[in-house]
């Protein structure tokens, strides 16, 4: 049996007048159904670009992407639109609609699915509670703090109970407590609803906490894939090793707790 | 296409009036029509002036049957319009002449005007030819072969007296009278601007062929309403009104007996 999400020989470059910047250089990746799949790597490695290729916000130059039996890269516009309705995406820059209240932002993808007004209301209220923003229901994004915006983005991506969730640094703007609760939420929907989650993160704690598998992206190439355990215990790639070192450095920086590691 | 197109209106005393639709320039055309309106009412007709801002589409609208008649042109223009546009419009009677003249704020006679003088004249199709014509009469220029309704400065064959001509919207001319040595315009416009129209350098003769006429389609030429209208317009009473109202700047076609 083949994997749920398959990426084969994916290339992507950005051109401008002077030069061509090849960002993804032949990515092959297999993600099982029900995985919480972490992608880590340096800033600028191509993580966002990779994930954006999966729902074709970026058109790959070469290569194939499958989700289940559908070849995403060969869908026509209409089919793609239909398929996207069940792919949630959390953007690094939030990309909320300034013209809609928090409620309407989250309700938007449900409207696209033709969900009834009443059901939308129920669903959105539940999501707002989950991300701790019930009191901001009628606020506009322009008046929200960074973390609040990010939580709206998360709620919006989860609204349609997608079967695939693409999460681009979903907790980067959140305090530890909110982060924890969002991670628990992601784990919960993964367990309960079987959502496959692809999660870009630079918070190794987060990856360690909920990812079952991790890929390391280095300069547009996947240098390592494996269970989170393997990669955290014994990274093979350059990036993996450096990350682990830094991770340890942070954790063992017990300047005032005397190695106790509070 | 529909013979019963004319609408009926009721006056205060319950009499039914037939409406005649018209396109007529504002001054003096509409004012003259307004003056004759009560008399026309007595004959069972009323005039609806649908526009008083003339432009080049009026003859076409009349030809199309959208209105019953128009009143803003002189016969030479009409003839050429018919010629140019395959029109069949007819003149059913002249009413008044707006003589055209040359004036100056700097010189009191044509002889004083030096060589190289600047001259401004109206740029509209009904008046530019006339303006050029009086310049020719005066012996300042020689016009080539040109159609009445299409003349422009480009048709001047020879400048006998060296002058510099500018074409301007006839309504704009008044705003520039101090900037030109000579300005040519219709007498009525000169008067409207509060200027003395009798102080002309030279102007069209009394025998001007440029009487403003009532124009309609051939099938309406014998329309009793239009006939009645023309009759009233050409009456001595109307002529007197025109003379009085415009102080001689507008000259009625009908001679008034002293």
């Amino acid at each position, binding site marked *: 049996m083949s994997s749920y999400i398959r990426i084969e020989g994916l290339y992507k470059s950005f051109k401008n007048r002077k030069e061509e910047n090849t960002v993804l250089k032949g990515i092959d990746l297999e993600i099982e159904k029900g995985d919480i799949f972490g992608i880590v790597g340096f800033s600028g490695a191509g993580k966002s670009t990779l994930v954006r290729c999966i*729902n074709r*916000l970026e058109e790959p130059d070469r290569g194939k992407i499958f989700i289940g039996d559908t070849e995403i890269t060969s869908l026509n516009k209409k089919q793609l*639109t*239909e*398929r*996207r*309705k*069940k*792919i949630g*995406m959390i*953007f690094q*820059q939030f*990309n*909320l*609609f*300034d*013209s*809609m209240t928090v409620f309407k932002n989250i309700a*938007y*993808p449900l*409207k*696209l699915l033709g969900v009834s007004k009443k059901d939308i209301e129920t669903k959105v209220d539940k999501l707002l509670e989950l991300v701790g923003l019930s009191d901001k229901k009628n606020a*506009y*994004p*322009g*008046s929200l703090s960074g973390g609040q915006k990010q939580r709206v983005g998360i709620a*919006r991506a989860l609204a*349609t109970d997608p079967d695939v969730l693409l999460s681009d640094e979903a907790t980067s703007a959140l305090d530890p407590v909110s982060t924890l609760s969002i991670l628990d939420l992601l784990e919960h929907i993964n367990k309960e609803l079987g959502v496959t989650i692809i999660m870009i993160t630079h918070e190794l704690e987060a990856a360690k906490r909920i990812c079952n598998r991790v890929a390391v992206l280095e300069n547009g190439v996947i240098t390592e894939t494996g269970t989170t355990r393997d990669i955290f215990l014994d990274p093979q790639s350059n990036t993996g090793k450096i990350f682990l070192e830094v991770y340890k450095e942070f954790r063992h920086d017990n300047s005032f707790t005397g190695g106790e590691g509070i | 296409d529909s013979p019963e197109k004319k609408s009926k209106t009721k006056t205060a005393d319950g009499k039914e009036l037939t409406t005649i639709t018209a*396109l007529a320039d*504002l*001054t003096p055309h509409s004012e003259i029509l307004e003056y004759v309106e009560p008399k026309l009412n007595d004959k069972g007709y009323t005039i609806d*002036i*649908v*526009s*008083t*801002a003339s*432009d080049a*589409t009026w003859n*076409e*609208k009349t030809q*199309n049957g*959208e*209105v019953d008649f128009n009143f803003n042109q002189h016969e030479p223009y009409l003839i050429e319009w018919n010629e140019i546009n395959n029109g069949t419009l007819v003149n059913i009677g002249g009413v008044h002449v707006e003589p055209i003249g040359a004036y100056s704020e700097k010189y009191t006679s044509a002889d004083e005007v030096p060589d190289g003088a600047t001259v401004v004249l109206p740029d509209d199709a009904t008046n530019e030819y006339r303006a050029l014509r009086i310049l020719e009469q005066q012996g300042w220029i020689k016009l080539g072969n040109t159609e009445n309704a299409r003349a422009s400065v480009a048709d001047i064959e020879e400048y006998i007296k060296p002058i510099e001509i500018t074409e301007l919207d006839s*309504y704009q001319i*008044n705003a520039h009278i101090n900037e030109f040595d000579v300005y040519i315009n219709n007498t009525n416009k000169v008067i*409207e*601007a*509060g*200027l003395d129209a009798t102080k002309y350098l030279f102007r069209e003769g009394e025998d001007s062929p440029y009487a403003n006429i009532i124009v309609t389609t051939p099938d309406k030429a014998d329309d009793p309403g239009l006939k009645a209208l023309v009759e009233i317009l050409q009456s001595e009473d109307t002529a007197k009104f025109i003379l009085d109202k415009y102080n001689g700047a507008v000259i009625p076609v009908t001679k008034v007996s002293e």
Partner: protein
Amino acid sequence: MSFLKFPFWEVVKHAFSKEVWDVLLPAVWDTLYMVALSAAITLVLGVLLGIALSVISKEGVRPVPILNETAGTIVNCLRSLPQMIMIIITLPLARMLLGQSYGVNACIIALAASCIPMYARLVQGAFVEIPKGKIEAAKAMGSSSAAIVFNVMLPEAIPSIIRGFTVALIGIISMTALAGSFGAGGIGDIAVRFGFNRFYHDMLIASVLVLIVMVEIAQIFGDLISNLILKKRHLI
């Protein structure tokens, strides 16, 4: 009363006399009617055309290059025409739609026809300004092109579209002078044909004053609504 015959202040004073306003007031209503209707038409068709242009443009949500070139050229043709020439084009159109080529309604067609292409370009410009991340978000959620346009782009751009409409509306108001050519009357016509051409300078003053007030109201309302929306959204 003309400046040429009377002292300045007397003319100004007379601009506020009953005599002048008895002529002007009905014209004000005519103008309001014309402006309101042609503005409404311009708004609807201008926004639709603007949407169409930006949807099919090269960077749009559904590019159709050939159609884009064609539509763009037609719009530009209309924009290139002097007002006078615009009138010729309106004549057959008005005759077709209304059965007559003069009157208030024919004039409304000419006014709208003159302003729609320009407003459409302003609308198109408003769409270009939307940050692409938002459109990507809409796409990622599986929005059809129509949904992107009507549920996302239009609401996001609405403050800018309103500001553009203010520009178009004011253009319409100042163009009502054209109404004279249609025998449609109104304030602008009085200003030009009586005030300017016939030297009723008191009427000129009064009618220009009315025009200024109308424009001022349009501007204030446009700014107000646009800013209210931006404030509501905490964007200014």
